[in-house]
């Protein structure tokens, strides 16, 4: 097993290097940081611009491959270069990764757990009222784009605030800036900010997971081993949870790991709409500000996140399912 993991990791390292290098080349070739300085009033002297760009390793007069080598040399030492504003890319992204993590963790866990239970229950009561309702609701959520869903939630939240006459749901940012008070006040404030984006994330996930889990569960429900478990004297409910759900959960858990990896840089809309300054938001921002180093760093982070998630899902699968363990 250890040897297998080591080989996997080596493979992944190569993949990350290739993906990140390609992303850097693409960003450095396509984005034009020089335009950030040109056309200003009063015009900045060409020499100053060049000096500034060279300092940031963004000068398009330097050959692409030389810039790449400089950048790669830095990356090897853990330095992802500077943003167009001159700050450290590493520090900026480190802060943003924290924001994204705080945003998605609860939403992801809530969404997947609720989705699994909704799906499993719908399968047990196949063609019942709950099954039909949850199926209908899932398809509605899946059909509505995140942008629309998030905005509906904001409108509903604001409407509710007006109804009760208090700011229950806060719709922008991670916390109220400059808020005075102890830990409890801060926590409540953060929670108020978190509810709507969490809801927007988890609704989509519930829809996906419940569909997925319902199918997995239906496959297992008719299996002989459920009958065996009941013939042993287990109650139907216990047999369903202990034997059916446990077996049908394996694909959902591995899928969970994968979702986590892809959400780390994939919650662009939610972050933008709710004003959370996370990774997804920064990816879009950095492209519009011609921030080559940030784009490359985010790509590197995304590659890392996806591969780590895929490794985690493989390991989880092996832990949960004895049939796939490699000898």
């Amino acid at each position: 097993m250890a040897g297998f993991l080591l080989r996997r990791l080596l493979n992944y390292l190569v993949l990350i290097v290739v993906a990140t290098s390609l992303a850097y080349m693409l960003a450095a070739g396509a984005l034009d940081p020089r335009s950030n300085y040109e056309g200003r009033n009063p015009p900045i002297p060409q020499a100053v611009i060049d000096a500034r760009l060279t300092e940031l390793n963004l000068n398009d007069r330097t050959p692409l491959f030389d810039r790449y080598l400089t950048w790669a040399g830095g990356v090897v030492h853990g330095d992802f270069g500077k943003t167009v504003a001159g700050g450290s890319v590493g520090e900026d992204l480190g802060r943003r990764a924290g924001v994204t993590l705080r945003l998605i963790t609860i939403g992801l866990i809530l969404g997947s757990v609720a989705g699994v239970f909704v799906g499993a229950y719908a399968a047990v009561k196949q063609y019942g009222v709950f099954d039909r309702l949850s199926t209908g609701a899932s398809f509605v959520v899946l059909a509505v784009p995140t942008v629309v869903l998030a905005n509906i939630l904001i409108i509903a939240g604001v409407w509710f605030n007006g109804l009760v006459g208090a700011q229950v749901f806060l719709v922008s940012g991670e916390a109220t800036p400059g808020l005075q008070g102890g830990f409890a006040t801060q926590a409540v404030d953060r929670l108020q900010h978190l509810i709507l984006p969490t809801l927007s994330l988890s609704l989509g996930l519930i829809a996906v997971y419940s569909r997925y889990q319902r199918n997995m569960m239906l496959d297992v429900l008719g299996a002989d081993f459920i009958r065996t478990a009941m013939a042993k004297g287990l109650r139907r409910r216990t047999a369903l949870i202990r034997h059916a759900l446990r077996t049908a959960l394996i694909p959902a858990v591995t899928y969970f790991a994968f979702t986590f990896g892809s959400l780390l840089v994939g919650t662009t809309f939610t972050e933008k709409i709710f004003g959370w300054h996370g990774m997804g938001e920064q990816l879009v921002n950095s492209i519009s500000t011609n921030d080559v180093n940030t784009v490359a760093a985010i790509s590197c982070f995304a590659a890392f996140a996806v591969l780590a998630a895929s490794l985690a899902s493989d390991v989880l699968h092996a832990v949960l399912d004895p049939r796939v363990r490699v000898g």
Partner: protein
Amino acid sequence: MRECDERQAGTGARPGASGRADLADPVLEVTDLDVTFGSGPEAVRAVRGVSYALRPGEVLGIVGESGSGKSVTSLAVMGLLPPHARVTGSVRLRGQEILGATEKTLTAFRGKTISMVFQDPLSALTPVYRVGDQIAEAVRIHQKVTGQQAARRAVELLDLVGIPNAAQRAKAFPHEFSGGMRQRAVIAMAIANDPDVILCDEPTTALDVTIQAQVLEVLKRAQRETGAAIVLITHDLGVVAGSVDRVLVMYAGRPVEVGSVDDVYYRVRMPYTMGLLASIPRLDRGGGQPLVPIEGNPPSPSALPPGCPFEPRCPIAVPACAEAEPALEPVGSPGHLAACVRAGEIEAEGWSPAQVYHAGTGGPDERGPGTPPVHLRPVRLPRDERDVVLEVKDLTKHHPLMKGAIFRRRIGTVHAVDGISFDIRRMETLGLVGESGCGKTTTLMEILELTRPQHGTIAVLGHDTAGLNARERMAIRRDMQVVFQDPLASLDPRMTVYDIVAEPLRTHGIRDPGPRIRELIRLVGLDAAHAARYPQDFSGGQRQRIGIARALALEPRLLVLDEPVSALDVSIQAGVINLLEDLKNRLGLSYLFVAHDLAVVRHIADRVAVMYLGKIAEIGQVGQVYDAPMHPYTQALLSAIPLPDPGKERSRRRILLEGDLPSPASPPSGCRFRTRCPKFKTLDETDQARCVNEEPRVRRLGEDHGVSCHFAEKLDVV
């Protein structure tokens, strides 16, 4: 399982012959059990009025073909049917009514007083839990013990059912167990709480014969340990004959004959049971006589005829049969019941199954009990003077065994077929038999491929397949056709029968195939008017006939049959076997008949080759191999097959093989059978060394009888 020294002949309603067990109250009493799925005119009445009583320690066999309602009956008793099934009647377990009881009552009984062994051991265990834990779970549901005690008990139980190294194997997962071992684990689970009743639903159907013999032995031991009464549900009259005290025969959801095992086998009073007994190919009887199929098909459970459900297929039906369904009434000896209006006549006249089924539709009373017509085999030239149709020499097929998802590497070789030789002459049938994994299907696929084998030669009709070009290969395919095992899967559901049979003709450029197709459809015993129908409109036996018609379309000289009757019920199977036999004689065909059922092969084949782990263990004329098998494996294989004859079964000596088939990726050195060979254990050291070091070749030990064993000797095992 015949552990009670007295056998009972009574039903619950009528305690009959004296016996120790009769004094006790029944542990399980089923009365007028009805199970209906759906409602309205579409309703399927799967079980209709089943009643039986089971006394402590008694073994009851429930026999019936697929769709007869035997499995549904047992699920209804356990309360495990899906909620949309409507169950009425009464099921009393130790005097307490459990039909319609609350889940709490039921779960208290299930697994403790009454437990169940299911048909398919491969899917009966939860794949993600260790085998030991699953057995321990059964213990902990009903007994207040600690986890450790339950785990220890699980190991004891695994040991009891004959799992070697039980403490270690208890930690294994189900997929690490073979089919036979899983069934043992399921039995261990069933006896974990010392139940009073064990329902076994086709417990050995999915297993090979030698493993079946082991599992039946385990069931006997389990019964000895727990003293439980057992209901053994099966379609195999052989399994029932040797293992049970009483038999209940089901047809169309209803019991049609009940009685002690001897009464039912030797003094059979219901024509359906007679048909079942007459249609099984017998291991203890040679070929030469056609089997007696039951005409027609079982009725659909949603459209039963008004009278006796067997009336449309019954050879001695009279008008009264179609009027009302006959009740199950006593005939002859006490405890023997049959549902037939003519049971009394059969009793009085003493008609045998053969007489009833050979007398034609009028019944024996009109024409008199006639002697069965002797089936004449056509006169054939001696074997040496007939052409060789297929010659296989030293055929070898090795598959690489690969491992790893990213870095695939070869870690071994699966020796699927390892140097086998045989030939088939004109108008001859060679049966290729063996258990699953012995390489028989690989052999067949290699022959069908018509290319150069990895090693050795294949010559079809005198052409070496190594040197064929595409055109010659196409020409040979005309002469060699195949019939597959699963008749439904091998017919395209979107094509009509006409198109299916026409396909080979069109492929080989024959114009206007119409007349030929009609001729073929009639030839295999179907109505030419049905040519426009689709495969799903036919029953299993009829579909297999369509498959045979397609194979015969190009007038082949050699037919390769891959388990052609193993998916069919006995009463249907007999008809297809007779058809094959008849076609062979009329058309001068040769067959390569691959099967795992040795009784079928004895019936149809002229010569037989027994395979074990990619090698031929014994080959020769059917009579010689079956009557005097010389290889220890053939002897064990033949002795493992139960005979549908209670008397013979009781007196038979059974050679039980230990363990499972070794992996074909690492076959044992020398003789491949030595790890399980009963003979090997009796040899002294020098002889054993010979088995370990020297691989036996097939030696000719008689006229047309070859054996690959250093120490072969004759033994009568049937």
